[in-house]
């Protein structure tokens, strides 16, 4: 399952970050690493991007990017 399929309000643990290069590094630099707990807080009014709670702060990523994050 990837992060973009997770319901709002659910907390999941990251198992793997797919992809490579700049985007992957950027996602991981922001603290979305293997074993990190992520909660989907909300979806933007137009359906994209998502707002996540990770490591105690709010992060916004697009669904395209969320689809590269595998969760358990």
């Amino acid at each position, binding site marked *: 399952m990837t992060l973009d399929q997770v319901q709002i309000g659910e907390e999941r643990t990251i198992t793997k970050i797919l992809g490579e290069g700049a985007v992957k*590094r950027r996602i991981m630099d922001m603290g979305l690493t293997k074993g990190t707990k992520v909660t989907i807080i909300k979806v933007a009014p137009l359906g994209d991007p998502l707002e996540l709670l990770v490591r105690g702060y709010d992060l916004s990523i697009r669904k395209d990017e969320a689809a590269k994050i595998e969760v358990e």
Partner: protein
Amino acid sequence: MSIKIALAGNPNSGKTTLFNALTGSDQYVGNWPGVTVEKKDGRLAGHKDTVLQDLPGIYSLSPYSLEEKVSRNFLVYEKPDAILNIVDGTNIERNLYLSTQLAELGIPMVIAVNMMDIVDKAGDKIDFKKLGKALNCRAIGISAQKSRGCRDAAAEALLVAREGLKSEAPHVFSGSVEHALAHIEESIQGKVPAASIRWCAIKIFERDKEAIEKMGINPKTIEHVEGHIKDCEKELDDDAESIITSQRYEFIQKIVKDCVVKNSKRLKRMSISDKIDRIVTHKILALPIFILSLCAMWWLAVAENGPGTILTDWANDQFLGEDGWHLPFTSHKFKCPEKECENCTADERGENCTCESCRIYTGMEYEEAQEFYAPHEKNIEAWEAAYIEAYNEANKDKEGFEELAEMPEELDEALARTVKADGVRLDDDEETGEAVRGKLKDGCGPCIEVEIAEEDDEDAPELEWTCDWAMYQVSKAVPEVDPSNYGVFIPGISTLLDSMLDKAGVNETVKSLVKDGAWGGVATVLGFVPVILVVFLFLAFLEDCGYMARVAFIMDRLFRKFGLSGKSFIPMIVGKGCGVPAVMAARTIENERDHRMTVILATFIPCGAKTVVIAMFASIFFRDMWWVAALMDIIGIAIIVLGGIALKKSRAFAGEAAPFVMELPSYHLPTPNGIWRHTWTRVKGYVFKAGMIIFPACVFLWLVMHFDWSFTLLADEEIEKSILHDIGSWIAWFFAPLGFGTWQGAAASVSAEIAKEQATATLGIVAQNMQGTSTAAHIKALFGSMSDFPRLAAFSFMVFNLFIPPCMVAIAVTFREMGTKAWGWFAVAFQLFIGYTIALSAYQVGMLICSGVFTFWTILALAIDGFCLWAIFRPARKEIAK
């Protein structure tokens, strides 16, 4: 020897606030990621030999983004003496991630944990001793906004800078990674500086090409250690770069567990920030709130009766212009103009004065007096205009007839003396009375009914102002309203300059050069300051409080489709009022590509000045087409959407889409000081940097309009002798396919670059010799002389001037915002192409449809349109793998 301290930290961690607190300089601070793109330096207050370098806010030292590269290159290759690492205490886990990277560089470091006031308030505890020990450096708590501990942080940094490196980098990775790193370190020992050996080893492990290249290490050495890296990757089932990143975070998690005690009671409760966020990014409420905030900005900056417009009008007409102004918050009641009261004796002056002015205006406020005088002014204008016309008509066949342009002075004076304000004639002065009547009989009867359309009121052209002889005499006797008789009056700078030049006794040419040319240029620059000020005060508030990041969050989906950012919406709304603050407002977009695209496209929305042009053309040519004005807005929006799509597919903007991974900072109430500093920096930048381009450009355009080749000053009406006329003739061919290829059309288009509304003024001047009795008729005749399809030509002229590069001022800020000259020219060329294409298509295709005219130009127009459609609808470029 001077000491260099680098200030490094995450975006939005309060770095610039600390920088300002320590250097006292007014740097740019904002509450959204990516404010500082360039690095800036300042001297540490109280330590003249210490330079503090403010680096861009970064999350990591990865080689992928521009800001990160700037910071990394500075730290690694310019080797500051110490790093002051600022860490947001409310978001310590992610902030320390950068700290672990900084600690490896082999530069002495101090960690300043910022926002301790908020941390304390929340009841959390941070053990700085443990934190410092874990990262092998000093750590202290500060609050930059409350100026708490800032000096201590600077003193610590200074101390470690003097002491030099004492401890080695912390070991943050797991056994197998550390093992591989040890092998790498061993093989590169002696080949890289000893202090940064760990950093080099990690970069080699990560296979960071850029860093390895700069180290200048033999590729064989790299190959030699590759086996160790591969082993590690196999063991941990991930690529090397990800292993490093993951393990850093694991290490930090351990530190945070040890050093930070979270207030257990707080965990469940929602913070105020969360509550605000729940409303402003609410599924249904988000868009209305966003629109509401846009309306607020619209009203503040550019609405007809909003503060921005009032300030702008005041600055242009009263402060900088010729009107002058009364000191606010003081009495504007009429006061006897004592020294001018010639009719009163010395005892009567002041309160008892009985001169005309005092008799009429005593007790009135300035505005009341103006209101009182307004109809009299209209009477005088109406009657005199009719008199002049009648005089010319009656005498035109007489020998030696000279056309009367204005009321003869002697007649004017004589008239003024014949009546008193209440209509009592002063006929006892037989001589004067006779003289007046004699003169008037020469021309026409003294009692003519005058019919003049009131010009100000566009909606009611049928309204007429009539004035007969008796009324005229009365009005003439009413003293004019002199603003200096009403409280403290400060004349406009133009007026002051005028009188100064008169006193200096310079000739007309020099006077006009200084007053209209040079001062005109300066006034153009300064005239935009109020609207920029208001827009940026508002934007600064939105940015500082953290709403701006949410705007991107809310609008991203919509704008991404045509290559823009969610924040692009704001410049476009501002652009409806004025393009200059719009282009500057694009600054809030941190992604360089989105930023450039927004700057190029934002000015296509017809601004306030362009609305004047639209209104004039609509009233002259398109009275039966009420939708023309709306059509211009629609074309503007269409250009932005389609232009965005086309540009996104062009080579200039091609490449991998930037990932939208954005922090949503916590809301906080901005300080007035911060907002002001923020706004002021931008206004200052506009005046000094953009002004440098605008000023000479305005002066140049004014010169070519008002001088001929022998450098003789020309009156406005003599534009046909001006240099601009010749320039217009040279480039008229360029406009021929658009239907207005005469020097008049060219000159009006060129002069419109001073300010768009100048197009209407210049058209009025260049058309004055056309037949007709009014300016509107002149302009109609002018377009009639240019083309067989005057309405099409007029439409083409209008759209051309609306959609080519905006006025000088906006072009100047565009150049500034685009960063490089090449990009500036690209923007201008793109805008010129769009404007020309639309005008060409409108005219040529219009002719084809109306009467089947088919020429070479029709083919060209259709070809260019085809090209545009191809640019819009062609498949997107394959993303170039880097």
